[in-house]
Each structure stands twice: as C-alpha cells, then as structure tokens.
C-alpha cells in the first residue's frame, strides 16, 4: 500500500515521456499497419493507423515474387558482415597501438587520425578517386570502402581512450616478461578483456553498414549489386523499377495489375528495420555507453 503514495514529479515525468514515446513509435506503427493493409483499400482510403481491410498480401507477394528483394537483403547482410568484422579488427588494432604510450611516432599518428574528423576533401575529389583511379564503380568494394564506414577516426579514438583507461599496463608488461609476442598479447589478452568496447564499436560499424545507401547511390548503376537500402531508395522514387525488377520480364509485367505496389514498398521497409528493432534492446546499453564517452580528443 505504500506504493499508492505517488511522487508528483515522477507522475508528470511519466506522462510527458509517454508522449515522447508515442511521438517516436506512431510513425513506425503507421509503416507497419500500412504494410498490413489491403492494397486496393489503401488506394481508396490512404495509409492509416487502423486499416479498413487488413491483408498479408504484400508479404505474400514478397515471399513468392521477391527474388530481387532477397538478393538485396543478402547483399546487405554480406556487406554488413564482412564490413563489421574487418572494420572492427582494423579499428581495434590501430586504437590499441595508439594506446601504447611508449611507441615512437604515436603523437603524429594520433594527429593524422584526428585530422580526418576535422577536414576532408569533399565529395568530388573522393568520387573521382574511387571511380577513375581505384575503379570501384559497380563492384562490391563500392559498398565496403568509401565514406569511412570501415574505419572511422571517431571509433579509433574511442577504442584508444578505452584501452588507455581500462587496460592495466602491468598486464602487458608481465606478459612480455613471460615472453609473449605483441600479436599474442593483443589477440589473447587484450581482445578478450575488452568486450564492452568491441561490442560498442562493432554495433556502430554494423549499423553504419546496414543503413548505408550513400555509397550505392554514388557508385552503383548495376542494380544487381544494390543493397536493401539502395533498392528501397530506388523504388520510392521509381515504382516502375520495382514492378520490372520484381516481375523480371515484360510478359510477367502483365501480372503488374495484381502487384500490391503501395503496400509492398512498406513491407520491404518493415523487413529493413526488423533486424535493428530485434537486436537493439539487447545492445542499447552498449550503444548508449559508446555515445556518451566524452573523452575523445586529439
């Protein structure tokens, strides 16, 4: 019965916060209910939070006609997987090196990493470099390399700061006395005790790859390499592209009339955010911690 005594300011806080929660969730809800609506009914009544006619038509269509979508989904998974693993390795190795104070030249390297956060050449020189010199256009590398998703100076400094504050120097020293080599120290001692920061940075890189559409927009014209985000991006502006790519041929385009164009788009967007919604509650604390580490300095 003690709990009946409600704290007034906490009550106000709850009410206002629930408003913010609604502000955040309602648009997402509209996306989901739209994908679960009957296509013809949406034509007549528009997207709504409570469809007049519910339907799984969009998802059924996607399951049977969705090779293109699954291909794009596969490419998103592949680039996210490869990119996150390699990005995390590269970031952790550089960050660790920078945390070793006795290393000659450490300050210069540190500055070179930090400077990438302050100044960049801009879109045009970068574009020309990747297209004309490195020839990544229409290759899978176009999705993996440009735009600092792989290695980001911010992440490197985040890892460095963590190693600096949380790795006991004596541990490294005693391992050296025992004759362990640098590589062994890093992989068998440092990595296992640094799981929190590796989870945070891995999550940041992973979300970066999963959400990236910019690289595909700039460097892909071959739609076969489109990630899910690129595919979504394209069909929002170009409904014809969707019907063609899904139907696959002209005669199949006859079936076009049957295609639930308005709701399928929403269904694809829903399966695009599903992985994030599923994993995020478990990683939320890592993410918040990574975001609030303030001590990122040159």
């Amino acid at each position, binding site marked *: 019965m003690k709990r009946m005594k409600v*704290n007034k300011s*906490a009550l*106000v*806080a709850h009410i206002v*916060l629930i408003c*913010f*929660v609604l*502000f*955040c*969730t309602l*648009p*997402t809800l*509209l*996306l989901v209910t739209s994908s679960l609506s009957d296509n013809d009914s*949406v034509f007549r*009544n*528009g*997207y*709504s*939070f409570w469809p007049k006619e519910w339907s799984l038509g969009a998802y059924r269509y996607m399951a049977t006609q969705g090779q293109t979508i699954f291909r794009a989904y596969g490419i998103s998974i592949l680039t996210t997987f490869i990119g996150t693993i390699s990005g995390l390795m*590269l970031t952790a*190795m*550089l960050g660790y*090196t920078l945390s*070793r104070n006795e*290393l*000659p030249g450490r300050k210069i390297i540190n500055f*070179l990493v930090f400077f990438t956060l*302050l*100044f*960049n*050449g*801009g*879109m*045009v*020189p*970068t574009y*020309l*470099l990747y297209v004309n010199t490195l020839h990544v256009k229409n290759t899978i590398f176009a999705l993996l390399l440009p735009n600092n998703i792989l*290695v980001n*100076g911010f992440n490197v400094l985040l890892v460095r700061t963590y190693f600096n504050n949380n790795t006991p120097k004596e541990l490294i020293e005693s391992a050296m006395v025992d004759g362990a080599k*640098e590589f062994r120290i890093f992989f068998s001692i440092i990595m296992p005790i640094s799981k929190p920061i590796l989870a945070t940075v891995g999550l940041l890189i992973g*979300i970066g790859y999963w*959400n*990236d*559409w*910019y690289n595909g927009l700039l460097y892909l014209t071959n739609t076969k390499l489109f990630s899910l985000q690129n595919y*979504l*991006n394209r069909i929002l*502006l170009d409904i014809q592209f969707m019907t063609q790519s899904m139907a696959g041929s002209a005669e199949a385009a006859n079936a076009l009339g049957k295609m639930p164009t*308005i709701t399928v*788009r*929403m269904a694809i*967007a829903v399966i695009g955010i599903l992985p*994030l919604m599923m994993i*995020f509650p478990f990683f*939320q604390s890592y993410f*918040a911690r990574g*975001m609030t580490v303030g001590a990122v*300095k040159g």
Partner: protein
Amino acid sequence: MYKRLKKIKKLLPLYIMALPALVYLFINNYLPLTGMVVAFKDFDYSKGIYGSDWAGFRNFLFLFKNSVAFIITRNTILYNVAFIIINTFLGILVAILLSEVTSKKALKVYQTVILLPYLFSIVIISYLVFAFLSTDVGFINKGILEPLGKSTISWYNESKYWPIILPIVNTWKSFGFQATIYYANVISIDKSYYEAAQLDGASKLQQVRYITLVLLKPVIIMMILLAVGKIFYSDFGLFYQVTQNSGAIYSTTNTIDTYVYRTLIQTGDVGMSAAAGVYQSVVGFLIVLITNLLLRKISPEDSLF
C-alpha cells in the same frame, strides 16, 4: 640512435598492426585532399584531374555570381540553427524527465524507444514521411484533411511547408540521442545538492533551475559549440531523400551538400561542384577552429585540440 632503432624494432609488430587502418585512412581521407585542385581546373574527363587545364578562380566566380550560392548557404545555416535550438531544448528536457523516473524497467523502455529512430536509415525515414505526406495515399491528406472537408495539399511540391517539416523529421530522428548524452550528465550530479535544496524548501522547478541547469552548463555549451562546428555541413540524406529530390521545393531544401551532389551527378559540372565542396571544406574548417578557440576559453578541458 642505436637504442631507438632497437626499440622501434621491438615494437615493429605494433606498427604492423596499425598499418592496415592507416593505409585505409590515407587512401580514403588523405589522397582526395590533393584532388581538391580540381576546383581550380577546367575539368575534362579524358585528361583527368591533374592533366586538365587551369581555370584559376573561374569556378568560384560562377558559383558566387549565381544566387544559388546564397540560398544553399542560408538554408544550411538556418536549418542547423533550428536543429541546434530544438535538439538542445528537448534533449535537456527529456534528460531531466528521465532522471525523475525511479522504475528501472520503465527507464529502460523509455531510453530504448527514444533512441530507436536514431538507428533508422534516412531511406527508411523517407518512407515514414512518405506515408504521412504522399499526395494520393498519405495519412495527412487522406486521413485528416479529406475527412475534415479541407482540400488536400501536394506536400512535395510546396516549398513553404518544408521549413517546418524538416525540423520535425530531424527532431524525430535525433532528440533521443541528445537526451541520452544529457541524461548521462544529469545522473552524475551529486545527489546531496538536491537533498540540501529540499531541506531549504526548494520546489522541483527551482531545483532544476538552480542546480541541474547550472551544473549542466559546461556540457550544454560544449554540445552547442560542437554542433556549431558542423554548421556548414548538412545531413545529405535528410535534404535529399526525405524531400524525394523534388525540384519544386529546392528553394527551401537545397543545402551545400545536396547542391554538390546534384551538380556532380545530375548536371555533371565537376568544376562547379568541386568549387562548392572546397568552399564548404575551407569555411567549415575555419568555423571548427574558431569554435575550438571559444571552447578553450570557456572550458579548456573540453576543447578538441
């Protein structure tokens, strides 16, 4: 000298570990810097960046003679100012409200939900916006305006609405992130201040006004100055995807970043695009230097360098 060499040799494995990431940063971030000269060239694809003829400042002259230079600069800065004000206000408000929540479970739900939009890609967000604003099937036209007997609005063709729409969308995406950062600072405030204030009979609002806000001041200043340092840059996705690249609303949605992209990819004018890019990089960098100077004056331990 010999001793130093020996030390470097012993630490060689560390340099090898650092190398892959450094090579990447060199290629991705440093090689393009030399390519910035393209802004001063009369670019010709067949001759490449370095082989093309020099154009001096001609690209820049064209850029600034055009009224578009003023529009993109104005839009970039004004939107950023609006975003900074809204984000700071809501971020602090939500952080203080979160600190009043005692139930661990509720707290976790609130924190997770308000941060979720931050994880959505801007492409997904443009779908959410489309579900509301689509002329034919959007919720606002079909679900609100039509039932009320009002005439529908062609949102993607009316530039006057976007100075309202874009701040709402940006707030939706990023206030949770701001709140997360401020919250971490609010809960680190020593509880004894509040206990003492309560003994003196201070109301909740007075406590917020005279304790929380006062102690948050350094963080608030730092966060604002960090955002000011980026005032010459805009979120390309927000202004390109969410507006569906609609030409009719460029007057209120074109920013430096969208202009650079459109001029490069859609118009194919490499010189002009590069000139706008160099303008952004250089002025943006100067702004970073100035804000850092300010930071160093106000709170030296928070300055970037």
